[in-house]
């Protein structure tokens, strides 16, 4: 797991780490028992304040996704991977077919993103208090 911190993004750096970890958990790139990189490994590569990493890991721990074991590190406790999100699953393959069609029809990245966002809101309405 390697974090990429977008340095001029409006998203707080610790939130970027939380989001990227969850993304990896959803895609099955991180599985229960896996060790997250140590704070010093992350800050050496990403050149961010160590508290950024600790705060992100605390947040993930609060959500029950990871466990911090004293002196040993932070480990994945729960996966967010759904069967359908794995590479090679029928659901994901269906999406790939759709993507290929959209590209063949001449849609640009922004068109696809807008289309996805619109349908996402129809099928998966946001909870009222979403941040």
């Amino acid at each position, binding site marked *: 797991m390697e974090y990429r*911190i977008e340095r001029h993004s409006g998203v707080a750096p610790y939130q970027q780490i939380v989001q990227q970890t969850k993304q990896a958990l959803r895609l099955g790139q991180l599985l229960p028992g896996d060790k997250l990189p140590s704070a010093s490994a992350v*800050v050496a590569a990403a050149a961010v*304040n*160590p508290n950024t990493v600790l705060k992100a890991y605390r947040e993930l721990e609060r959500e029950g996704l990871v466990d911090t074991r004293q002196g040993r590190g932070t480990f994945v406790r729960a996966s967010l991977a759904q069967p359908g999100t794995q590479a090679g699953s029928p659901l994901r393959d269906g999406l790939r077919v759709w993507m290929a069609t959209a590209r063949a029809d001449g849609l640009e990245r922004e068109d696809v993103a807008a289309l996805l966002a619109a349908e996402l809101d129809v099928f998966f309405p946001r909870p009222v208090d979403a941040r």
Partner: protein
Amino acid sequence: MTPSSGPASAHHGDDASATAPALEAVGLGLHGRDGWALRDGSFTVPRGRVVGLVGPNGAGKSSLVAVAAGLRPADAGVLRVLGHVPGSPAVLPRIGTLFQDRPLERRFTVAETLRLGRDLNPNWNDAAARAIVDNCDVPLKARVGRLSTGQRTCVALALALGKQPDLLLLDEPMADLDPQRRRALTGALMTRAAEHGTTIVMSTHTLSELHLVCDYVLLTARGRILIADDTEFVQAAHSLITYTCPAPAAPSLPPQAGTVIETRRSGRVHTALVCFPLSTEGAASTSSLSLEEILLAYLRNPQASPLIAGSTRDDAPSAGTPDSHERPTQ
């Protein structure tokens, strides 16, 4: 191995120094080129923070670093470093420094410079120092006098980090580095902070990256300390409040919005950058700000009311510093 982590540190001095703040200033005054660069400055930097020291040129940043390093005395008041008098034998082995002119012996090679560091510092970590020089692509056999300014900065930082200090005092460490070395050295500093809890105080003009690297900010301008607090708190304390005024000539702000740092007006839209907003009544919208926007607002408005952690002396500003509440909005 960290002297700050318990009884093992006893040989460094009294018990008080193990818990003393990294820096503690009371009524600190520093002469600048024309008059006082800092006057009656009181602030505390807790241990273990990564501090961004921010202010315009001539605001005393370099002087503050020099006084903390024991190179020159304070011109008024007191500054304590790790609980000690700056430059005293109890504190000198525990600080690593980087000055703007990066003073190094030009005739020495890089390897000789590091060997000197090892000979002079009982706590020397050769691997740490060499890692910096390696990562920054500085040849060990080159003479210091032939290095680029960026490479010299890398050698000076390697010396400062090889010493394994409890406190790093760095005057514009990133100023003359290319992006690659900047990233490598920032990573090295952050690793030192993560693994050893080393306090880092660095002056900088790069406000856009401050929130990524620093967790504490010390902002000085026009002879005053304007901010000395956690970056997270500074960010949470300020809001940008937007008002829509029916007539462009109408007074821009309802009274008692909070401590106003800056107001702006563009036609009917008036915005106020407010510290501790008390009331947002009548506001069209309220939004949060980036740390950079907040720091810039203070730099543009050096007469603003200061935000200093643990300070209760807000109501007693020194002579000649008008309270921001009285500032007319233009």
